[in-house]
């Protein structure tokens, strides 16, 4: 049974309206994207939707109490809440630099959680 699915590509803020024509479970055509990332997105959204997760992780002894982090690559949508549990369990020590691996191989996905900000050490030690 041919069917149509309308999606909004979330890969960039342009937000192209993409129309996927499905024949049963197979994709027969994809229209409306402005760049090829849109094709990949539409395909994934119909089979295994994924998202990049961004959050913050506690920092000890830093000049700021938290450092921003992200999953290096998009992870399956169904893992978002487990990913947040991992992130909330974490605590790192300053200094933290952009790109530092915070969690290796998150939930066996092969994807790392990395720092996206710099947090230098606090000038005076305040212990927290």
């Amino acid at each position, binding site marked *: 049974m041919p069917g149509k699915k309308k999606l909004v590509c979330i890969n960039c803020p342009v*937000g192209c309206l993409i129309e996927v024509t499905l024949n049963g479970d197979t994709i027969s055509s994809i229209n409306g994207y402005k760049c090829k990332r849109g094709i990949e997105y539409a395909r994934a959204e119909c089979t295994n939707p994924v998202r990049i997760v*961004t*959050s913050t992780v506690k920092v000890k002894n830093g000049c700021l109490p938290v450092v921003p982090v*992200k999953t290096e690559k998009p992870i399956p949508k169904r893992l978002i809440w487990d990913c947040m549990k991992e992130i909330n369990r974490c605590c790192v020590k300053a200094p933290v630099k952009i790109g530092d691996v915070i969690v290796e191989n998150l939930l066996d996905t092969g994807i790392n959680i990395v720092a996206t900000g710099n947090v230098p050490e606090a000038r005076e030690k305040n212990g927290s």
Partner: protein
Amino acid sequence: MKKVDLVVIGGGPAGMAAAVKAKEKGVQDVLILERENNLGGILNQCIHNGFGLHYFGEELTGPEYAARFIDKVHRMNIPYLLETMVLNIDSDKTVTAVNSAEGVFTIKAKSIILAMGCRERTRGALNIPGTRPSGIYTAGTAQKYVNICGYMPGKSVVILGSGDIGLIMARRLALEGAQVKMVCELLPYSSGLTRNIVQCLDDYSIPLRLNHTVIAVHGKERLEGVTVAEVDQDRKPIPETAEFVPCDTLLLSVGLIPENELSRDAGIELDPVTSGPVVDNRMETLVEGIFACGNVAHVHDLVDNVSNESELAGESAAEYILGTNVPDREEAITVKAGNGIRYTVPRIIRKQSLSRNSVKIFFRVADVNRNVKLAARCGNNILLERKKVKVTPGEMETLELKAEDLQEIKAGEELVIEVKTNGEGQ
């Protein structure tokens, strides 16, 4: 009095891109003045991804995007002063600023780039009746609390206004365990990007209530709930639809306003629609030698566009300082926001500066519409037309006009940007 060739006010994405470009184009003496204690501006608290795809060709988070420009500023040895607040600008380009190291000081500049960004509209600007309990924040303030300070503003949240920061914060608070009850939007459509509705609300089953607003807040010390109601076509609340929604936090995401107190005091003419300075195609304001770029000029959806626009301002300031391109102000084309258009940037095109290959006109439409044509015309002469399946005021549009086409237009004539809906003529 200290003398500097180019003073850039604001060390966010706009200021940094402008300063870097001006230096690349040969201005040796550049100084950035920044109010906060680090460069990067609001990007530092925008920890979500989605930045840089157009400018850098890869997807970055806000702090990562900022860091790329901070690195450039450092590599090019561009000096900057942090925790330095500009108090006043004169039209003769004297800048008065204050910081704890130097006290109040003045700088005489050959050129100034305004890159102060924008700020959020607050509850005061909205007039919601009720008590004044704690627990009411602008979305950006809540964003700072969560992402920089590391604490949660509350546990159960209603968001008023579906601007992008509100949508982003809906997801952020949901991820951190808050119960986000709903996002209310007064208008029949969201002012945020569609992608944010999908990935911030739909993904987390957060309802978006269009044509709804908050008509009262309740609670003495701390917010205990809000009354939400549907609105009619005239945006007046319908009393029968009023509903009490318990919550301890109300976030406001009801729009951004360019921060232009300094510009106004300097006698720079502002556009009543954008609240930003009127600028020409080189991002020069109506005061010669003072340029504006980024969200201080008009509120952008994409930081990538801010960077491009700011580089243009930086380059133009360099040409002004070095005297390589100072166009005759008489030789100007006026850009007019025609049918269905809220505003355009620029508002003026200087004919003698058209050596660059093209001029990009940025604009917002006034209403949501489908299957339209966006057009640029002078009289009956259509310079450019582009079909669009969907336009919304939440998304900035552009038309790129060729310099040679613009040269055809006589000084003093009008270039009209307009939306053509189906079936209608011009």
